[in-house]
Protein backbone atom coordinates (compact mmCIF):
# COMPACT_ATOMS: atom_id res chain seq x y z
CA UNK A 1 0.00 0.00 0.00
CA UNK A 2 1.18 3.60 0.60
CA UNK A 3 4.43 4.65 2.22
CA UNK A 4 2.44 6.29 4.97
CA UNK A 5 2.69 5.16 8.60
CA UNK A 6 -0.03 2.67 9.54
CA UNK A 7 -2.33 3.29 12.50
CA UNK A 8 -3.67 0.55 14.77
CA UNK A 9 -6.41 1.16 17.33
CA UNK A 10 -6.67 -1.28 20.25
CA UNK A 11 -9.56 -0.87 22.67
CA UNK A 12 -11.15 -3.14 25.26
CA UNK A 13 -14.42 -2.48 23.44
CA UNK A 14 -15.02 -3.56 19.81
CA UNK A 15 -17.45 -0.63 19.52
CA UNK A 16 -14.90 1.95 20.71
CA UNK A 17 -12.26 0.53 18.33
CA UNK A 18 -14.63 0.66 15.38
CA UNK A 19 -15.92 4.12 16.32
CA UNK A 20 -12.41 5.54 16.59
CA UNK A 21 -11.52 3.93 13.25
CA UNK A 22 -14.62 5.53 11.67
CA UNK A 23 -13.45 8.95 12.91
CA UNK A 24 -9.96 8.35 11.49
CA UNK A 25 -11.43 7.36 8.13
CA UNK A 26 -13.57 10.50 8.08
CA UNK A 27 -10.47 12.65 8.70
CA UNK A 28 -7.97 11.03 6.36
CA UNK A 29 -9.99 8.86 3.98
CA UNK A 30 -8.39 5.66 2.78
CA UNK A 31 -4.84 6.97 2.29
CA UNK A 32 -3.57 5.86 5.69
CA UNK A 33 -3.30 2.11 6.39
CA UNK A 34 -5.60 1.40 9.33
CA UNK A 35 -6.27 -1.59 11.54
CA UNK A 36 -8.42 -1.80 14.63
CA UNK A 37 -9.53 -4.41 17.14
CA UNK A 38 -11.35 -4.68 20.42
CA UNK A 39 -12.62 -7.40 22.69
CA UNK A 40 -11.17 -10.50 24.29
CA UNK A 41 -10.92 -13.85 22.43
CA UNK A 42 -14.58 -14.56 23.36
CA UNK A 43 -15.82 -11.19 22.10
CA UNK A 44 -16.38 -9.67 25.55
CA UNK A 45 -14.61 -6.55 26.83
CA UNK A 46 -10.85 -7.04 26.79
CA UNK A 47 -8.01 -7.34 24.31
CA UNK A 48 -6.51 -10.23 22.39
CA UNK A 49 -2.93 -10.67 21.20
CA UNK A 50 -4.21 -12.64 18.19
CA UNK A 51 -6.53 -9.80 17.14
CA UNK A 52 -3.79 -7.20 17.70
CA UNK A 53 -1.39 -9.17 15.48
CA UNK A 54 -4.07 -9.31 12.77
CA UNK A 55 -4.71 -5.56 13.07
CA UNK A 56 -0.96 -4.80 12.77
CA UNK A 57 -0.88 -6.99 9.68
CA UNK A 58 -3.85 -5.15 8.21
CA UNK A 59 -2.28 -1.73 8.82
CA UNK A 60 1.22 -2.84 7.82
CA UNK A 61 3.39 -0.24 6.13
CA UNK A 62 7.12 -0.24 5.47
CA UNK A 63 7.07 3.26 7.04
CA UNK A 64 6.02 1.60 10.32
CA UNK A 65 2.91 1.23 12.44
CA UNK A 66 1.76 3.37 15.40
CA UNK A 67 -0.53 1.67 17.93
CA UNK A 68 -3.03 3.59 20.07
CA UNK A 69 -4.34 1.78 23.16
CA UNK A 70 -6.95 2.53 25.79
CA UNK A 71 -6.34 0.84 29.18
CA UNK A 72 -3.59 -1.25 30.85
CA UNK A 73 -4.29 -4.67 29.35
CA UNK A 74 -4.44 -3.20 25.83
CA UNK A 75 -0.92 -1.85 26.30
CA UNK A 76 0.50 -5.06 27.82
CA UNK A 77 -1.12 -7.20 25.12
CA UNK A 78 0.12 -4.83 22.39
CA UNK A 79 3.69 -5.05 23.76
CA UNK A 80 3.38 -8.83 23.72
CA UNK A 81 2.07 -8.77 20.14
CA UNK A 82 5.03 -6.61 19.02
CA UNK A 83 7.46 -9.10 20.54
CA UNK A 84 5.78 -11.90 18.61
CA UNK A 85 6.26 -10.15 15.25
CA UNK A 86 9.02 -11.29 12.89
CA UNK A 87 12.37 -9.61 13.70
CA UNK A 88 12.32 -7.39 10.62
CA UNK A 89 8.97 -5.89 11.69
CA UNK A 90 9.56 -5.47 15.44
CA UNK A 91 11.55 -2.23 15.25
CA UNK A 92 8.91 -0.61 13.04
CA UNK A 93 5.98 -0.80 15.46
CA UNK A 94 5.53 1.60 18.38
CA UNK A 95 2.88 2.15 21.04
CA UNK A 96 1.89 5.80 21.52
CA UNK A 97 1.28 7.11 25.02
CA UNK A 98 -1.83 9.02 24.03
CA UNK A 99 -5.62 8.96 24.45
CA UNK A 100 -6.97 6.36 22.05
CA UNK A 101 -9.57 8.36 20.08
CA UNK A 102 -7.85 11.74 19.88
CA UNK A 103 -4.46 10.06 19.52
CA UNK A 104 -5.63 7.91 16.60
CA UNK A 105 -7.08 10.92 14.77
CA UNK A 106 -3.97 13.07 15.38
CA UNK A 107 -1.58 10.26 14.48
CA UNK A 108 -3.49 9.46 11.29
CA UNK A 109 -3.54 13.13 10.27
CA UNK A 110 0.21 13.35 10.81
CA UNK A 111 0.74 10.13 8.85
CA UNK A 112 -1.47 11.39 6.02
CA UNK A 113 0.93 14.34 5.64
CA UNK A 114 3.78 11.89 5.04
CA UNK A 115 5.53 12.18 8.40
CA UNK A 116 7.88 9.54 9.79
CA UNK A 117 6.89 7.04 12.49
CA UNK A 118 8.77 9.09 15.12
CA UNK A 119 6.90 12.25 14.11
CA UNK A 120 3.55 10.48 14.14
CA UNK A 121 4.22 9.15 17.65
CA UNK A 122 5.39 12.56 18.88
CA UNK A 123 2.29 14.31 17.57
CA UNK A 124 -0.04 11.77 19.20
CA UNK A 125 1.85 12.01 22.48
CA UNK A 126 1.58 15.80 22.60
CA UNK A 127 -2.01 15.10 23.70
CA UNK A 128 -0.79 13.45 26.92
CA UNK A 129 0.10 15.44 30.03
CA UNK A 130 3.88 15.15 30.49
Amino acid sequence: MSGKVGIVIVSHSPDVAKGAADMVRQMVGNDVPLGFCGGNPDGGLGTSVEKILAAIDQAWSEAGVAILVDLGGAETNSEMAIEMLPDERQGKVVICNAPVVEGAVMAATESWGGSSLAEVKKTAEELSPQ
Partner: protein
Amino acid sequence: MRTSAVAPPLDRFIDTLAQRIVAASEELTALDSAIGDADHGLNMKRGFEAILAERASLVAKPLPDALKAMGTILVMKVGGASGPLYGTLFMTLGKELPADPSVADAARAMAAAMTALKARGKADLGNKTMLDVLGPLADHLGSGGASFASIRKLAAESAAATVPMKAIRGRASFLGERSIGHMDPGARSSQIMIDAVCDVLEGKA
Protein backbone atom coordinates in the same frame (compact mmCIF):
# COMPACT_ATOMS: atom_id res chain seq x y z
CA MET B 1 11.51 -31.78 49.20
CA ARG B 2 11.09 -34.23 46.36
CA THR B 3 13.75 -35.98 44.39
CA SER B 4 13.63 -36.69 40.70
CA ALA B 5 12.68 -40.31 41.40
CA VAL B 6 9.20 -39.26 42.51
CA ALA B 7 8.56 -36.46 40.02
CA PRO B 8 4.81 -36.46 39.40
CA PRO B 9 3.57 -36.63 35.83
CA LEU B 10 2.83 -33.44 33.95
CA ASP B 11 -0.88 -34.21 33.57
CA ARG B 12 -1.35 -33.90 37.35
CA PHE B 13 0.18 -30.40 37.29
CA ILE B 14 -1.96 -29.29 34.38
CA ASP B 15 -5.20 -30.77 35.73
CA THR B 16 -4.67 -29.48 39.27
CA LEU B 17 -3.66 -25.96 38.20
CA ALA B 18 -6.63 -25.74 35.83
CA GLN B 19 -9.11 -27.16 38.38
CA ARG B 20 -8.00 -24.74 41.09
CA ILE B 21 -8.08 -21.69 38.81
CA VAL B 22 -11.47 -22.60 37.35
CA ALA B 23 -12.85 -23.27 40.85
CA ALA B 24 -11.52 -19.89 42.07
CA SER B 25 -12.89 -18.00 39.08
CA GLU B 26 -15.74 -16.32 40.98
CA GLU B 27 -13.54 -15.46 43.96
CA LEU B 28 -10.92 -13.87 41.68
CA THR B 29 -13.53 -11.94 39.75
CA ALA B 30 -15.05 -10.70 43.03
CA LEU B 31 -11.63 -9.47 44.19
CA ASP B 32 -11.13 -7.80 40.81
CA SER B 33 -14.55 -6.13 40.92
CA ALA B 34 -13.48 -4.36 44.12
CA ILE B 35 -10.39 -2.72 42.63
CA GLY B 36 -10.24 -3.56 38.91
CA ASP B 37 -12.49 -4.42 36.00
CA ALA B 38 -14.05 -7.64 37.33
CA ASP B 39 -12.55 -9.90 34.69
CA HIS B 40 -9.54 -11.61 36.32
CA GLY B 41 -11.40 -14.81 37.25
CA LEU B 42 -13.14 -15.12 33.89
CA ASN B 43 -9.93 -14.37 31.99
CA MET B 44 -7.87 -16.91 33.93
CA LYS B 45 -10.64 -19.50 33.56
CA ARG B 46 -10.67 -18.96 29.79
CA GLY B 47 -6.88 -19.32 29.69
CA PHE B 48 -6.78 -22.55 31.67
CA GLU B 49 -9.72 -24.04 29.79
CA ALA B 50 -7.72 -23.38 26.63
CA ILE B 51 -4.78 -25.18 28.26
CA LEU B 52 -7.05 -28.15 29.10
CA ALA B 53 -8.19 -28.22 25.46
CA GLU B 54 -4.53 -28.79 24.49
CA ARG B 55 -3.92 -31.25 27.34
CA ALA B 56 -3.06 -34.24 25.14
CA SER B 57 -0.30 -32.45 23.24
CA LEU B 58 0.99 -30.67 26.38
CA VAL B 59 1.46 -33.82 28.46
CA ALA B 60 3.46 -35.42 25.62
CA LYS B 61 6.10 -32.66 25.86
CA PRO B 62 9.11 -32.44 28.19
CA LEU B 63 8.44 -30.05 31.12
CA PRO B 64 10.27 -27.00 29.64
CA ASP B 65 8.43 -27.26 26.31
CA ALA B 66 5.08 -27.83 28.03
CA LEU B 67 5.58 -24.72 30.20
CA LYS B 68 6.49 -22.62 27.15
CA ALA B 69 3.44 -23.90 25.27
CA MET B 70 1.18 -23.17 28.28
CA GLY B 71 2.61 -19.65 28.40
CA THR B 72 1.84 -19.09 24.75
CA ILE B 73 -1.75 -20.32 25.23
CA LEU B 74 -2.23 -17.92 28.16
CA VAL B 75 -0.86 -15.01 26.10
CA MET B 76 -3.20 -15.74 23.23
CA LYS B 77 -6.37 -16.71 25.09
CA VAL B 78 -6.67 -14.82 28.37
CA GLY B 79 -7.68 -11.45 26.95
CA GLY B 80 -6.53 -9.22 29.82
CA ALA B 81 -3.18 -8.02 31.14
CA SER B 82 -2.96 -11.27 33.13
CA GLY B 83 -2.43 -13.15 29.81
CA PRO B 84 0.93 -11.61 28.94
CA LEU B 85 1.89 -11.58 32.63
CA TYR B 86 1.16 -15.23 33.45
CA GLY B 87 2.27 -16.10 29.91
CA THR B 88 5.63 -14.48 30.62
CA LEU B 89 5.86 -16.38 33.92
CA PHE B 90 5.26 -19.78 32.28
CA MET B 91 7.44 -19.04 29.22
CA THR B 92 10.34 -17.87 31.39
CA LEU B 93 10.07 -20.92 33.66
CA GLY B 94 10.03 -23.08 30.51
CA LYS B 95 13.18 -21.39 29.24
CA GLU B 96 15.02 -21.61 32.56
CA LEU B 97 14.01 -24.99 34.01
CA PRO B 98 15.61 -28.29 33.01
CA ALA B 99 13.35 -31.30 32.32
CA ASP B 100 13.79 -32.56 35.87
CA PRO B 101 14.35 -29.51 38.07
CA SER B 102 15.85 -29.33 41.55
CA VAL B 103 14.86 -26.74 44.15
CA ALA B 104 17.95 -24.74 43.19
CA ASP B 105 16.79 -24.79 39.54
CA ALA B 106 13.35 -23.60 40.65
CA ALA B 107 14.90 -20.75 42.66
CA ARG B 108 17.01 -19.61 39.71
CA ALA B 109 14.07 -19.88 37.27
CA MET B 110 11.76 -17.92 39.61
CA ALA B 111 14.39 -15.20 39.95
CA ALA B 112 14.60 -14.96 36.15
CA ALA B 113 10.79 -14.89 35.96
CA MET B 114 10.70 -12.01 38.44
CA THR B 115 13.05 -9.98 36.22
CA ALA B 116 10.91 -10.75 33.15
CA LEU B 117 7.64 -9.94 34.94
CA LYS B 118 8.94 -6.63 36.32
CA ALA B 119 9.83 -5.62 32.75
CA ARG B 120 6.53 -6.88 31.28
CA GLY B 121 4.33 -5.18 33.85
CA LYS B 122 6.62 -2.17 34.44
CA ALA B 123 6.03 -2.94 38.10
CA ASP B 124 8.06 -3.64 41.19
CA LEU B 125 7.64 -5.13 44.63
CA GLY B 126 5.14 -3.26 46.80
CA ASN B 127 2.95 -2.15 43.86
CA LYS B 128 0.09 -4.50 44.92
CA THR B 129 0.56 -7.10 42.17
CA MET B 130 1.35 -10.79 41.64
CA LEU B 131 5.03 -9.83 42.11
CA ASP B 132 4.33 -9.39 45.83
CA VAL B 133 3.63 -13.13 46.07
CA LEU B 134 6.08 -14.46 43.47
CA GLY B 135 9.02 -12.28 44.61
CA PRO B 136 9.08 -13.54 48.20
CA LEU B 137 8.70 -17.11 46.85
CA ALA B 138 11.75 -16.67 44.59
CA ASP B 139 13.80 -15.40 47.55
CA HIS B 140 12.52 -18.16 49.83
CA LEU B 141 13.39 -20.92 47.33
CA GLY B 142 16.84 -19.38 46.98
CA SER B 143 17.37 -19.39 50.75
CA GLY B 144 17.74 -23.19 50.70
CA GLY B 145 15.48 -23.73 53.70
CA ALA B 146 12.12 -24.01 51.95
CA SER B 147 9.59 -26.72 52.85
CA PHE B 148 6.13 -27.22 51.37
CA ALA B 149 4.63 -25.90 54.61
CA SER B 150 6.86 -22.82 54.64
CA ILE B 151 6.12 -22.11 50.97
CA ARG B 152 2.32 -22.33 51.49
CA LYS B 153 2.52 -20.13 54.59
CA LEU B 154 4.66 -17.53 52.83
CA ALA B 155 2.33 -17.42 49.80
CA ALA B 156 -0.74 -16.91 52.01
CA GLU B 157 1.00 -14.21 54.07
CA SER B 158 2.30 -12.49 50.94
CA ALA B 159 -1.15 -12.40 49.31
CA ALA B 160 -2.65 -11.05 52.56
CA ALA B 161 0.09 -8.42 52.70
CA THR B 162 -1.25 -6.87 49.46
CA VAL B 163 -4.48 -5.85 51.27
CA PRO B 164 -3.08 -2.67 52.88
CA MET B 165 -0.97 -1.80 49.81
CA LYS B 166 -1.89 1.03 47.44
CA ALA B 167 -2.00 -0.01 43.78
CA ILE B 168 0.56 1.67 41.52
CA ARG B 169 0.05 -0.38 38.36
CA GLY B 170 -2.94 -1.52 36.33
CA ARG B 171 -6.57 -0.53 36.53
CA ALA B 172 -6.49 -0.57 40.33
CA SER B 173 -4.04 2.34 40.27
CA PHE B 174 -6.88 4.59 39.03
CA LEU B 175 -8.46 4.11 42.44
CA GLY B 176 -5.41 5.43 44.31
CA GLU B 177 -6.04 5.35 48.05
CA ARG B 178 -9.34 3.50 47.50
CA SER B 179 -7.39 0.43 46.34
CA ILE B 180 -6.23 0.04 49.94
CA GLY B 181 -8.14 -2.59 51.92
CA HIS B 182 -8.60 -5.18 49.17
CA MET B 183 -6.43 -8.18 48.27
CA ASP B 184 -4.85 -7.95 44.83
CA PRO B 185 -6.53 -10.52 42.54
CA GLY B 186 -3.24 -11.35 40.79
CA ALA B 187 -1.56 -11.95 44.14
CA ARG B 188 -4.41 -14.31 45.07
CA SER B 189 -4.26 -16.24 41.76
CA SER B 190 -0.49 -16.61 42.21
CA GLN B 191 -1.05 -17.98 45.72
CA ILE B 192 -3.61 -20.47 44.37
CA MET B 193 -1.12 -21.71 41.76
CA ILE B 194 1.69 -22.03 44.33
CA ASP B 195 -0.61 -24.10 46.58
CA ALA B 196 -1.58 -26.27 43.61
CA VAL B 197 2.06 -26.94 42.67
CA CYS B 198 2.92 -27.77 46.32
CA ASP B 199 -0.04 -30.14 46.55
CA VAL B 200 0.99 -31.98 43.38
CA LEU B 201 4.66 -32.22 44.38
CA GLU B 202 3.68 -33.45 47.84
CA GLY B 203 1.30 -36.03 46.40
CA LYS B 204 -1.82 -34.36 47.88
CA ALA B 205 -3.45 -33.64 44.53
